[in-house]
């Protein structure tokens, strides 16, 4: 979401952040280098590629998938993804009968260890307000066509509990390795507002844009 007021008050906000940091550094409460390290981790290391590993493992290892659906926190930790905002995870499985999507109507709760920090639209008023009353309309805007015969389940996250969608494995991927499959799993497919990429060369425009985003 582009914030309409970005320009005018932004310098003011930027100034306040700078002032707060300078004050806290002066008091010895914050180490600027520690800040740099944390920022680098969430900007470059922790992101949807983590969740994609979880999904690809579940697609190729049925015992892992069972553990993932029974105790997601522990199964995700098996792959080394633990930490803040991922302490209590639930994985919801898409099937031909059920399509799941995730929202946080109250704020921005999101599974950081598996997906990184949420995109702006996820934290925006339009998504938070509409996901729960017009999920099919929202999915349509994301280019996701869910058949009328498929139930749409919307999961509202909270500060303690975070959801990850296990998307349906695309058809025609039987020969693909776990690594290759991970490359098909998009961020939005794990939020439920997208589908995994397909193997075909000429995908939809939406799939193409998601490919570029990776």
């Amino acid at each position: 979401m582009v914030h309409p007021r970005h320009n005018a008050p932004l310098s003011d906000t930027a100034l306040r952040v700078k002032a707060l940091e300078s004050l806290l550094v002066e008091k010895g409460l914050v180490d600027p280098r520690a800040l740099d390290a944390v920022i680098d981790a969430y900007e470059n290391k922790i992101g949807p590629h983590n969740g994609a590993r979880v999904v690809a493992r579940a697609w190729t290892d049925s015992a892992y998938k069972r553990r993932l659906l029974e105790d997601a926190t522990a199964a995700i930790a098996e792959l080394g993804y633990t930490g803040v905002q991922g302490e209590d995870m639930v994985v919801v499985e898409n099937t031909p009968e059920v399509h799941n999507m995730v929202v946080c109507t109250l704020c921005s709760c999101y599974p950081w260890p598996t997906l990184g920090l949420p995109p702006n639209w996820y934290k925006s008023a339009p998504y938070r307000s509409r996901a729960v009353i017009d999920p099919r309309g929202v999915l349509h805007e994301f280019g996701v066509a869910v058949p009328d015969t498929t139930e749409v389940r919307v999961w509202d996250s909270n500060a303690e509990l975070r959801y990850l969608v296990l998307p349906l494995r695309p058809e025609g991927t039987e020969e693909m390795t776990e690594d290759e499959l991970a490359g098909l799993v998009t961020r939005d497919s794990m939020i439920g507002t997208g589908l995994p990429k397909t193997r075909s060369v000429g995908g939809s425009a939406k799939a193409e844009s998601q490919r570029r985003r990776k």
Partner: protein
Amino acid sequence: MNGAHDLGGMHGLGPVNAEANEPVFHEEWERRMFGLFIATFAGGHFNVDQFRHAIERMNPAHYLDSPYYEHWLHSCETLLVEGGVISRTELEARIAKLEKEAK
């Protein structure tokens, strides 16, 4: 708490604008604000519930009309002042000083 943050089911807030190739942060101040939150949270100055509650106590019009990380700034400032970690006076003085230097 019943307030402007409780957006589920509200009408009239417009279409969802998903940005293609969205960066993790859009502005440098967002980057620093994220880091400041992690540092002060890890420093034990507040917990997640207090942090969210301070966001929910924002003026509703300001809440709806401000960028996401401004909510974090507001909450951090509020909790650090309320907790006696910094004073509002010294914070405003520091802002004024930096503003003067920037000119």
